[in-house]
């Protein structure tokens, strides 16, 4: 249910940016979520719709891109995608890793008129 709170924070940012950019109607909100955040897109859309009801963004389309979890090996520098919960370097087997993608909660752009 963290979708609710994240949708509320997104709604506040969208409305602020729309105001700053002089948009009277927001048509599209393009966002990126990391896979690790475990957002359920349908719940998120529903929560966002509630949060922007009666505002300039009430008809906005939410376009969600989910990015895979990507790690960098501290031992050999290899970058690799984790899609099986196995956090181990595919090249040298080290477990000394740094996450470089997969925890994002970014707004890429807002479109409107």
């Amino acid at each position, binding site marked *: 249910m963290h979708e609710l709170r994240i949708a509320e924070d997104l709604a506040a*940012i969208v409305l602020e940016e729309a105001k700053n950019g002089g948009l009277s109607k927001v048509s599209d909100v393009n966002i990126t979520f990391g896979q690790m955040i*475990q957002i359920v897109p349908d719940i998120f859309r529903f929560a966002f719709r509630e949060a922007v009801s009666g505002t300039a963004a009430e008809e906005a389309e939410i376009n969600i891109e989910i990015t895979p979890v990507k790690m960098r090996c501290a031992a050999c520098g290899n970058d690799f995608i984790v899609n099986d*919960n196995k*956090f181990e370097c595919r090249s040298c087997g080290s477990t000394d890793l740094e996450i470089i993608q997969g925890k994002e909660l*970014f707004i890429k752009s807002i479109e409107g008129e």
Partner: protein
Amino acid sequence: MRNILNRNQNKAAEVRKLLASEKVMMVNIISSPGAGKTTLLECTCEEIGRDFRIGVIEGDITTDRDAQRLKKYDIPIVVINTEGGCHLDSHSISKVLGSFNLKDIDVLFVENVGNLICPSQFDLGETFKLALVSVAEGDDKPAKYPMLFREAEAVILNKTDLIPYTNFNIDKFRSDLRDINARVPLFEVSCTSGDNIKMWYDWIRMRLKSYLI
């Protein structure tokens, strides 16, 4: 590109800075409802409270029952009722920090709302996250909730005394956890029977000693 949780992140950074300047270690305890967070705190207060000054923030959807259970340790406790909210955030922590005399606290345990997903996403400004999971929940929790187990700096498996009565596969649990986080210390304990709990006490003592130097 703008981070949606910027507000929470900025406040968490403020909290972290304040706690570092006051030399207070903050432990964010995350688990499902009923895994044994409050029981862990009871035995930890009893044992660690002899050498270190403890404070507790109790996050609960409603009621102060958990706080009532800890009253006997005579430690500062503040309850945050989230009134339906499924996690604590850095603003709620920041607000209650003023109720503590931070100069008189070495470690602040935060009992987050019982939930394995939402609390993992919200940085509170903690020193580290502690993941607590119990045998009765099943051995598949690390595989299902990788973010928590990846980010935790310690994992406690509680209620190990129940293993003979369940189909909990400890080898599977260990190997799933190792896949996700090969380096995290795992304590397999029973907070009620006291099995192995000394290993947790030794570890948290060591962490506190090195933090407070």
